[in-house]
């Protein structure tokens, strides 16, 4: 059993409920104990760091300090939370004055000494062999387009571990449970992110481009590890079809949902009924 401090972030109870369900279920199967950080707060993503630089640091710093108090490495499933936590940790570590200031702002000693892992990294750390041993329904015959977006791999000076131009961690994980993954150039193509609210047009054209590429590569589904990417690709797919007269029916799954299926978990337990684009046919092919 490996224990992690778990930072669910706001989407866990909202738009990314199915991600949370799948993460919990898969973690249990992999022997990862996710101990939710008590009294966690906003990660400081877009609304936070756009309000003020210091606020954008202090919010994640508090979560880091809480994890440090638990004596555990920290797992953040949402790509934006993960990016914020790592960015704040690196920036504060490089500036002793900032470290003291954080102590003052938080009303407690700041220690950013625990590792911060994305869900992808935490799962990958389990090791390919154990994953293989747990696989009861290999994803054979399923072609997956792994879509990383930006926050999991960039900026390269801060987020390290995967290739920022051609990331491979998700591909390795899913190939490890039998899936075929496509070697496409759109792994980190921008999904339009939060432009969905002020400039939906931008997002629709970006999403269309990613979906088109996935179709070209004959992918059965897209796998992602970012709730915002997921929202754009899944939730807005119907609007893309309306806007451009297309007929995309590309299921967009969280990578832990696919892993969960491979481990023989119940689709309901993995939140597979909560998507906008139906996943039932894909699930049938695996189960």
């Amino acid at each position, binding site marked *: 059993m490996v224990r992690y401090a778990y930072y669910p972030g706001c989407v866990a109870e909202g738009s990314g409920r199915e991600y949370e369900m799948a993460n919990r279920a898969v973690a249990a199967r992999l022997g990862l104990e996710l101990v939710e950080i008590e009294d966690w707060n906003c990660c400081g993503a877009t609304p936070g760091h756009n309000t003020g630089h210091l606020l954008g640091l202090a919010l994640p710093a508090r979560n880091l300090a809480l994890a440090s108090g638990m004596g555990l490495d920290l797992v953040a499933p949402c790509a934006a939370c993960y990016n914020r936590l790592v960015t704040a940790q690196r920036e504060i570590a490089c500036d002793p004055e900032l470290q003291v200031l954080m102590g003052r702002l938080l009303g407690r000693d700041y220690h950013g000494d625990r590792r911060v892992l994305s869900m992808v990294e935490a799962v990958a750390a389990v090791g390919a062999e154990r994953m293989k041993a747990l696989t009861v329904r290999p994803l054979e015959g399923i072609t997956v387009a792994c879509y990383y977006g930006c926050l999991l791999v960039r900026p*390269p000076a801060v987020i390290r571990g995967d*290739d*920022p*131009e*051609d990331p491979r961690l998700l591909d390795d994980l899913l190939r490890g449970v039998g899936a075929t993954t496509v*070697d*496409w*150039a*759109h792994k980190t*193509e921008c999904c339009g992110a939060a432009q969905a609210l002020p400039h939906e047009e931008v997002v629709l054209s970006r999403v269309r481009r990613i979906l088109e590429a996935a179709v070209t590569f004959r992918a059965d589904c897209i796998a992602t590890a970012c709730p915002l990417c997921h929202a754009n690709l899944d939730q807005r797919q119907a609007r893309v079809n309306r806007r451009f007269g297309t007929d995309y029916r590309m299921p967009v799954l969280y990578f832990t949902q696919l892993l969960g299926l491979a481990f023989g978990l119940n689709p309901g337990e993995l939140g597979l009924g909560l998507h906008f684009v139906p996943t039932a046919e894909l699930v049938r092919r695996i189960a």
Partner: protein
Amino acid sequence: MRRIGVFCCWCGSNIGGVIDVPRLAMEALNLPAVAFSTDYKYMCSEPGQELIVRAVAEHRLDGVVVAACSPRIHEATFRQTLERAGLNPYLLVMANVREHCTWVHPDDPERAFAKALALVRGAAAKAARTEPLAAGTLPVTRRALVIGGGIAGIQAALDIADAGFEVLLVEREPTIGGKMVLLDKTFPTLDCSACISTPKMVAVAQHPRIRLFTYAEVVGLKGFLGNFEVTIRQKARSVDHGKCTGCGACWAKCPARVPNEYNLGLDRRKAIYVPFPQAVPNKPVIDRRHCRQFTRGRCGVCQKVCPVGAIDYAEEDREWQERVGAVVVATGFDLFEWAEAYGEYGYGRYPDVITGLQFERLANAAGPTGGKIVRPSDGAVPRTVVFVQCVGSRDEAKGREYCSRVCCMYTAKHAWQVLEKIPEAEVFVFYIDVRTAGKAYEEFYVRARRAGAHYIRGRVARIYPEGNRLRVVGTDTLLGRPVEVPADLVVLATGMVPAAGSGELARILGCGLDKDGFFQEAHPKLRPVEAGTAGIFLAGTCQGPKDIPDTVAQGSAAAAKVVGLLVREEIAYEPTVAMVDQTRCTGCGKCRAVCPFKAIELVTRQVRAGTAVAERVVAEVNPGLCAGCGNCTVACPSGVIDLKGFTNEQLLAEVDALCL
């Protein structure tokens, strides 16, 4: 009591803008043995030097401290000044108050002043203990070694040989010619590269005073300015060039096919091969990594078909020594390995994303397509060609920080060539800045634009396949808008990096490299073709990116330097060498073990100890080989080795004055 003069230089504002130089001179007057001190704006100038000469006479000085720049810059200058003043040049001590003080502490003038004064105090203490030293002379070996047979090495070798001296030209590839001979046309005149470089290759081969060693490498260098001993390794060609007539029967029949490095992998060659038809020498070698006789242990086709019995599979690498007086390094460049760094351009997975040098081969009549510009993937003529500049250059994140200098111009030339050879072709060039600093360069670039090349200011973010074409995604930073171009062929202007093996060669030669791995010149402005090591000279792109005119100019400049050295019968060597007190030496040999120049030998000598004379084994320094590094003086357990000009007594006095 000695009478030391202290001369404090302002170096304009370099020193004088930070510390109070007149006050430094005033304070120096209080130091022991200092009889005179003064300051001047530029001590190295004519009036500055005159000031020293006059002061030596007027104040009967017998030692001089110059508080100015690094001794690397002007020690030689001021030694000559002392000579003119009638003093032994080694009675000079430099206090480096510029590089070691004002340049690094411009924001703290008070403490900088204190440091400058401490440096002067140390120098004065040393100066009070200096002794006159006399330089000896050694004969010069009047023959030069040129390493690298590209256009820089060819030019240097021809110039030295034309001046009447023998040249050894060592090239590691099977032919000379380097990168220039691979090019199609040269900017800005568009003259044929092969037409102007192959005659020079032939001139090298035919020159009575040039001995050419291709497929050979320099693997060792000993000795010093005027008297080097170089070790050359002739790699086994497996073909006896004495017998071979170059008839071509062998490579016609060879069954092995391997990617052809002379066409940058665009086609294949045989395992026994002549790199290209105009190669010098025009005789084949066997590439043993791919030859079936060597990889599988059987084949022997070339041996069977050779009419003169020149094939020798048993030939081995051969090493031997040669004596030379000077060395020219002309090892050139390689292209930045973009496929390892640029994932956004596909990591080399897309066949129609090529480099500028591959484009040269495509455009070259002697290349794999006979000069037709076509796509490597399907041989189709491209309608839209996109050029991407600064790939690996000016990119701190993925490549090198520096500008490679030639890419703007060769890209303009490529754009021109596409527009000229392919009617109705469209050409887009993505650039950061267009740099055309050269004679007639700007005019050529304007000509390419007027011919219809679309220049888009911005980097390319991504290239990916779309159907059987490529989509190039970038930004037009002048319009502030994203740009996408569907292209048939993409040409990357990859930057220059030092040739593979430069680091190893620098180690063998004892030369320094700069932060980017190019050979470091002795002075960036005033000694651009000399390496930091005396007797070694630099030519061409081994020293930094440059175009053909600059490369050829530097080849000739290096040759002029070499000739200036070789015309002398003998040269003076530095007297600052190690010296063993043989009456106290125990002959332990520790000094010999640490000497990097192999300048110390153990010899049997008649040694006088008190009144008795005994025969003992003692250390002895060869002053010609000794570089004055001082390793031995530190290693000697009995402390009986001193470095002249840097004796233990002098250094300790300097340290005491500095610290106490």
